[in-house]
């Protein structure tokens, strides 16, 4: 009864306040929030996901919707204040607040809900470095101009000079050529190649080498694999049945090809997230949407299939967040993000873009096969209360978090194409920064931001923020060209530094990049190096994956029987072509921290374990490599000539005297043990392929 009266009173007020005095936030509104609301919706408690002490979170709203919508009285807060439902009415379990105060809030909202910037509140999240727009910084001046090859060096050197330090000397030419080959191709240079480069005194020999490497299709294999890590690429469903996905390799080949033709990263993004929605979408653009077909699927689900469908949509949401924005969106599945300004409801607004998708099999003209792709469907989205698909909350429409630039949909209903366009709009603060940081990781071993998976407030901030921003703006300026950026970085003096000089001195973590880093190559590349060096590598591009034999007695799985039948030389293809079974990673790759495709992988671990030693010493593939390399070394020549040849093949350099002595001793020891010559050289090859330097990018 009392409520009904109040409601009537409100109607009267609503009619009357049109001529009300202008409402002032500081004088009229903030005291009401402070007195009535902030106890439950403030810094300590965020009931219903709502905080009214900060400007941003107030307009972000709570789990059931925006609290105030400027210019209208449709906000959830106003509805709740006058609700007749005791379970909904605010303040909960208390008397309603005075009608005059409600009228004030109402008038404030209708007058545009003005909240002055200076009163926005202490909101560290909104002010976080990575969420601010990218400003192209001025290139700093440095004292030692002789070391400047491009802008990168100016930024790095300026920071170093500020700590009375400088760049490490340039690495020798043999190290440089090997570094470039490993970074850009993941394959070793041939001894002839090394000699030619080492002796080429022409001023642009380095540039020519870089351009040649960037133009080779091996570049796409190397850099495509980096992207496949983020795409959690695999060729099976995961979970119990873990059924094979026969045509998943189409997406892998699309990535390699897109990287090789240097498809601009903005187009690369749009194709993968929304290629099917592009006007007049081509077959390739549709195949690109295989990116989000890489989600897991539990085909054995005995209960509600919806559980695993929603898990796949969450995976698409989270993977998009990590791959393009370096955000840990998944933390907002159950409640507002603990560290970053992402509301629970906003998570489901992003989720709504993918919730509409359906699966399709695209028939390919050239054969009877097809490719897994996405197709737009229709499906409404509700917030999952506490993350549970069994507890649907309010309905939400596809949209993006308010702390990022506004989404500008093409029409009333936003879709994945709008989302993709939003991500690659140059005003987006994260996409370009996250992308250039990844380029840096693969060329220095660590990122300018050491946490590539997390650019949020809980990640590690960059020591070179200006350089990161300059690179990000340069990336956009260069038309989002991946190759242009990689070329820029590898041509820098910073990249060409020695990785060993000054290692024992200050900045042992090398966070200022006053030298290069030496680090172990990834699991696939360990294999590629051995196969290539021993002359066994088969460099066929693309097509269905290979299944190297699983060790006998390792697991009695359905896959292995077929695997053992793999014919001939096929099994010596590059690691990127090895079939990825989600519940059964090949042990030789697992030993070297390979990516298993169950989750997006933003950086590979680099562990050192005895199992790695056993793998390289004794695994059939590596034994085969050693035997083959041993035979390669058997060509006519003295012991020393053979050893020199082996050293150059494996390490791209000549042996030092003391190294020769150790190996000559080993030759004679083995001969004394009565070993046949071919076995002796098999043993020498085994040693060379097991040296730390062999699997290290210096």
């Amino acid at each position, binding site marked *: 009864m009392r409520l009904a009266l109040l409601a009537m009173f409100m109607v009267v007020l609503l009619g009357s306040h049109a001529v009300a005095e202008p409402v002032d936030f500081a004088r009229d509104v903030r005291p009401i929030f402070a007195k009535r609301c902030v106890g439950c919706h403030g810094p300590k408690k965020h009931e219903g996901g709502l905080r009214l002490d900060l400007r941003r979170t107030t307009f972000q709203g709570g789990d059931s919707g925006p609290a105030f919508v400027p210019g209208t009285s449709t906000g959830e807060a106003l509805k709740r204040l006058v609700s007749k439902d005791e379970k909904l009415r605010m303040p909960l379990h208390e008397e309603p607040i005075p009608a005059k105060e409600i009228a004030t809030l109402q008038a404030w909202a209708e007058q545009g809900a003005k909240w002055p910037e200076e009163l926005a509140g202490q909101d560290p999240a909104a002010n976080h470095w990575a969420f601010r727009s990218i400003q192209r910084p001025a290139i700093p001046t440095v004292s030692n101009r002789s070391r400047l090859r491009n802008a990168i060096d100016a930024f790095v050197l300026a920071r170093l000079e500020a700590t009375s330090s400088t760049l490490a000397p340039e690495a020798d030419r043999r190290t440089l050529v090997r570094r470039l080959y490993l970074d850009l191709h993941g394959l070793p240079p041939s001894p002839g190649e090394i000699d030619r480069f080492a002796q080429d005194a022409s001023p642009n020999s380095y540039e020519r080498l870089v351009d040649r490497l960037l133009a080779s299709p091996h570049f796409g294999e190397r850099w495509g694999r980096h992207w496949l890590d983020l795409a959690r690429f695999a060729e099976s469903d995961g*979970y119990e049945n873990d059924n094979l996905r026969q045509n998943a390799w189409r997406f892998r080949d699309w990535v390699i090809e897109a990287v090789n033709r240097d498809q601009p990263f903005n187009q690369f993004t749009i194709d993968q997230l929304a290629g099917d929605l592009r006007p007049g979408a081509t077959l390739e653009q549709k195949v690109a949407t295989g990116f989000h077909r890489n989600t897991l699927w539990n085909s054995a689900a005995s209960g509600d299939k919806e559980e695993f469908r929603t898990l796949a949509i969450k995976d698409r949401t989270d993977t998009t967040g990590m791959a393009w924005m370096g955000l*840990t969106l998944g933390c907002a599945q159950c409640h507002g993000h603990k560290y970053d300004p992402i509301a629970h409801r906003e998570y489901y607004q992003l989720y709504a873009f993918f919730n509409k998708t359906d699966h399709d099999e695209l028939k390919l003209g050239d054969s009877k096969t097809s490719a897994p792709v996405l197709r737009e469907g229709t499906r409404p989205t509700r917030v999952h209360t506490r993350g549970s698909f069994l507890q649907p909350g309010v309905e939400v429409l596809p949209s993006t978090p308010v702390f990022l630039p506004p989404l500008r949909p093409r029409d009333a209903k936003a879709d994945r194409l709008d989302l993709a366009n939003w991500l690659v709009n140059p005003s987006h603060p994260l996409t370009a920064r996250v992308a250039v940081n990844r380029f840096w990781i693969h060329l220095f071993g660590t990122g300018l931001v050491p946490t590539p998976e997390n650019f949020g407030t809980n990640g590690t901030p960059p020591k070179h923020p200006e350089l990161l921003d300059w690179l990000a703006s340069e990336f956009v300026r260069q038309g989002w060209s991946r190759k242009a950026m990689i070329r820029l970085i590898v041509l820098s003096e910073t990249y060409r530094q020695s*990785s060993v000089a000054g290692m024992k001195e200050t900045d042992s973590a090398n966070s200022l990049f006053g030298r290069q880093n030496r680090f172990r190559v990834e699991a696939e590349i360990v294999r590629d190096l051995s196969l290539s060096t021993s002359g066994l590598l088969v460099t066929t591009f693309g097509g269905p994956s290979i299944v190297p034999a699983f060790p006998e*007695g390792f697991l009695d799985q359905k896959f292995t029987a077929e695997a053992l039948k793999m014919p001939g030389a096929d099994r010596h293809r590059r690691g990127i072509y090895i079939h990825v079974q989600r519940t059964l990673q090949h042990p030789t790759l697992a030993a070297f921290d390979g990516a298993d495709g169950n989750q997006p992988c933003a950086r590979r671990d680099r562990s050192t374990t*005895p*199992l790695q030693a056993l793998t390289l010493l004794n695994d059939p593939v590596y034994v085969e490599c050693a035997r083959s390399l041993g035979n390669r070394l058997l060509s006519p020549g003295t012991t020393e000539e053979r050893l020199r040849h082996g050293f150059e093949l494996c390490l791209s350099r000549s042996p030092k005297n003391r190294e020769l002595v150790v190996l000559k001793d080993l030759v004679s020891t083995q001969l004394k043990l009565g070993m046949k010559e071919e076995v002796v050289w098999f043993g020498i090859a*085994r*040693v060379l392929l097991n040296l730390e330097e062999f699997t290290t990018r210096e």
Partner: protein
Amino acid sequence: MLHDRRQFLAKTGGGLGLAALATLLAEDRLLADTDPLRVRPTHFKATAKSGIFIFLVGGTSQVDLFDSKPALAKLHGKPIPESFRKGVRLGQTTFAAPVMQSPFMFRRYGQCGMEMSELLPQIGACADDIALVRSMHHAAFDHAPGEIMLSTGKEQPGRPTMGSWLTYGLGSENRDLPGYVVLLNGRSPKARSLVWGNGFLSASHQGVIFRGKGSPILDLATPKEFSPESHRAQLDAIKTLNEFRREETGDSKLDSQIAAYELAYRMQSAAPELADLSKETKATKEAYGESGFARSLLLARRLIERGVRHVLVTHPEWDLHEKINQSLPGICREIDQPIAALLKDLKGRGLLDSTLVTCASEFGRTAITQGKDLATAGRDHHPHAYSIWLAGGGVRGGQVIGATDELGWKVTEDPVHMNDFHATLLHLFGLDHKKLTFRHQGLDARLTDVAGTVVKKLLHA
């Protein structure tokens, strides 16, 4: 100084004894604080040093083995009452299926009088050492998600398993063997390597499979062309050349690499020695029995005796969707004697107090059948209430924790979620589950996800 000694060692080749090499490497380990398996201090006093986790793959039936429900007899063949249906999700079966009483009797065992099936008399005889938890629950009711939940605390793939967290938190006492060993029997769990995977921890924390046939660890055997002497000579050359590189680069990562090769070498002899059961007495071998599973449990004891942190032993075929009455006795016979022998053996050697033995499944089974013909019926998956048991490692034996309703359908007392179980497991090892974290994707990830409470009743007062 150390370096000089290494060079000395390198020059003298394989002439030095293994002991000297081991001492030298122990010193290296002290230097190499990057060694991921070095022994680390606990958060507080541990009662368990090692764990043997017996995973009964497929889902043991609590109402047939661990949780006696006389009310099932009254409802046998009838539909389950309405009151049990609300809010319960089912897997493959439906509420049209009838309730089924257990085809087997329960008995009281031990001084404590713990009730367990007549099918497990020898395990029952150890009841006074066993803490039986009848109130386990979680929400994953398919095999792979259930196995991943049991192993990692969450249903979705991608996280480290229990043994990985233990070696990450504590290291391993024996560096001639892996810190985390996996012994598989019969078909693998459905989630395969995710049940012993390292998730986002480094590969150093992977469970390492010991194989029943051939060399126990993958790639353990040196190629047949090389004699032990030539193999060692090659390793010495690798070591010396790596040491040269260490000197030239100043990169301490090379120390880990050098240590890893020496560990691999010692593993090559330690693992076959471990797998060789010829030194075990006839009495011990007979106590365990002849089966592959029995051999696994004996190996498990030998592993933890040597300081290995965690051993996972699987036993297959508990997924009885049909013919429970015909199949269960035989399967129980396969585990009853070996598990009882393990408990007695550990106790006899004074190892039970420091070894946590856990026997668990990914979930339990339904009180209603799957299939209408009661003569051939089985039971469906049931994660809402089921039983596991623990013994040793500081667990107070001879007690039952938690209870379920009259059909073993829902937990009514002392619920133990999987996260609670994991919190307790870590606690026994002296680790605070909230402090054992690894920064992953912006969060301090834990074995217990965002929940978990230690089950105090399980611990000794």
